[in-house]
């Protein structure tokens, strides 16, 4: 074998080692978590996100490249509550890196810090396909939980690089102050919508709905993870008419075509991913939540509060 091949391998090894020495490599399962880690860690972290923005986490493939990323990571931050059921357990099973497995110094399961909603009292598969025995995992849609997520990211970084605690703390506190400011503002913005009826496609929006007192009167999926039947769609249509629902909230990966009959009744279908990062204006978690709130107000013909945050688009 030519010497150049060995030199090439040596170069690859040394290049990756040097980079690892410079920055902490953190794997975040969703864009929101990646955002918190990069915001708090700054130039001291390199973040890899496993679920691309706007992608259905149920459809993420547990690929060998993800295994490689995990095996080289210093830390792993995840949603937990079985959010990553489709891809993370088989990867964690294969990786031998004890530090990023449960109990390891680099393992942060944020779901353990959340008070989960909708823990099923009983569990069997007649209730649907997409069941979460530990509770609804979409807690990132409540901005108060966003603060818990940011704190978890901070704790992970401090655990991995305690010498940088002052820097991380400074960034975390700055972000948290901004988050608190916006949360107060959003509460005012959402107040007129309290009690308003909405329809959701999947049971992803429970935390947002709980925070702002919205009223989910129907779900397009009769049972989580299963396609709606024509009979169930008729039932949803009836509810929309009777309760004068003006907004149907759905993730971009669901098929809109079957909802045409509902749209005919005047309901506005708002397609939004359940994490930040899909649109340029939603790259940051706080902007994503703000965009979501503006969309809600727009659906109910409420004017755009002025001034909107810089960088946040008005709903189209």
């Amino acid at each position, binding site marked *: 074998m030519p010497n150049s091949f060995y030199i090439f391998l040596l170069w690859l090894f040394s290049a990756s080692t040097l980079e690892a020495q410079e920055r902490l490599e953190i794997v975040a399962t969703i864009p929101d978590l990646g955002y918190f880690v990069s915001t708090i860690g700054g130039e001291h972290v390199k973040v890899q996100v496993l679920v691309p923005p706007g992608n259905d986490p149920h459809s993420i493939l547990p690929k060998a490249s993800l295994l490689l990323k995990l095996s080289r990571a210093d830390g792993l931050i995840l949603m937990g509550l079985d959010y990553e059921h489709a*891809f993370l357990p088989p990867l964690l099973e294969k990786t031998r890196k004890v530090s990023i497995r449960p109990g390891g110094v680099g393992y942060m399961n944020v779901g353990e810090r959340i008070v*989960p909603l909708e823990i099923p009292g009983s569990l069997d598969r007649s209730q649907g396909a997409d069941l979460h025995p530990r509770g609804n995992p979409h807690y990132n849609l409540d901005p108060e939980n966003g603060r818990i997520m940011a704190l978890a990211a901070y704790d992970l970084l401090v655990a991995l690089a305690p010498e940088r605690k002052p820097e991380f703390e400074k960034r975390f506190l700055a972000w948290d102050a901004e988050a608190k400011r916006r949360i107060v503002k959003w509460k005012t913005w959402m107040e007129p919508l309290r009690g308003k009826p909405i329809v959701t496609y999947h049971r992803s929006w429970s935390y947002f709905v709980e925070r702002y007192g919205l009223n989910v009167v129907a779900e397009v999926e009769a049972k989580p993870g299963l396609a709606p039947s024509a009979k169930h769609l008729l039932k949803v249509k009836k509810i929309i008419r009777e309760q004068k629902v003006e907004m149907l909230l759905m993730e971009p990966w669901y098929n809109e075509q079957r909802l045409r009959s509902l749209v005919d009744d005047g309901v506005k279908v708002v397609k939004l991913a359940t994490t930040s990062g899909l649109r340029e204006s939603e790259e940051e978690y706080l902007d994503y939540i703000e965009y979501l709130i503006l969309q809600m107000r727009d659906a109910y013909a409420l004017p755009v509060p002025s001034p909107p945050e810089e960088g946040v688009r008005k709903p189209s």
Partner: protein
Amino acid sequence: MHTPFSKLALGAAVLLILSTSSTLLAQEGQLSDPTDALEGRMLESTFPGHMGRGGSGFTSRFDASFNPAIGLIFDGLGTFSEEAGEGVDQFDLRSVELNMASRIDPLGWAYIVAAFEGDEFELEEAVIMMDQLPANMTLRVGKMLADFGKWNTIHLHDKNYVFEDGVRTAFFGGNLNATGVELHQWTGIGNLPIRWSLGVHSDFGGEGDFASEIIGNRGLEELGFTGRVTTQQDYGANGFLQYGFSFFHTSEGLAYLRDSDADGITDEEFGLGQTTFALDFTLRDVDASDNTANTLSLELWRNQRDSLDAADNIISSDANGIWGFYQHDFNPFWGAGVQLAWWQDPLNTTGSDWFTSAESGGQRAAFVTHNLSEFNRIRMQLSQDHNVLEDPTWTLAFQWDVILGSHSHSLDW
């Protein structure tokens, strides 16, 4: 033939396994899985009424703690065919598969797959996986689906089509099932993940006439060896391209029937060899932004197999085979695809023309799959099978698979 070398090699392998196990046991303190404590905490926090595990760590005879995960898979099949024979023009429960898996200790886990097919019971797999060896190595010991090609380790009911590909059936009699030891390792060169495996097996074979389950001593010549190296490259945001190379070799491990001692009774003896190589290519692209997916898989096989001629002399035949399938998923609930295969008769010494000869077989099929849920799937397939030296026949098949109990996703590569 049992050479001193082969016995030495086997002895060395056993010693290696034992020494590795004892080294790992010595490290048990370091490797003890911290998940138990974490899991207990999680249960307390999320299930307020849950009592959790007893502090002593002991269980009673009737305690469900530490029990293996259990799953059952019903594979029902209705076939309507031009071809007369057993199992056609009727509905049948093709198999009921029982799966059980559990960790043994921090060093490894084990699983069994047992299938009930009609009145027959078959232990398809019974494997101990030592998955905490150093350097990302894993040792599989027991009866297993051998690591050969992309699809050999997948049970038929889990594949994208109803019937096994004709190449595998012609050259191995179905999935290559083997009893022995396989060493696996994965690593990465730069950003390229690579996995390899090497296996040594004493019993091997699928269904049909490819089998080596003679009870008795074996030497190196009668053992079967498998190997595979594969790599995956990312394709798009959520897809991959996978390439692999696999081999199977036995020098004299296949049996044949011969009245060797001229007593009028045919005896089964070792003595025939087979060498099979396969190149595999798979593209899997799942667009998680709209839940559509495409899967394309191709395998090219080269087979060399011994057989007996009319005078009971051992002769060798070369044969090629190629098979593949493509499936498009319109959404998580509906998919459709085609399956194609072509192969030369593995026992034909004269050779045959590619794709046209009567001494080659072919298979083409189109299928539609409807997933009622992740645990309930129906499939319809129309296929034309052209076995060697037979006329083509059409078959319409309906398959219904349901999964009960434990279920998980896996990283297969």
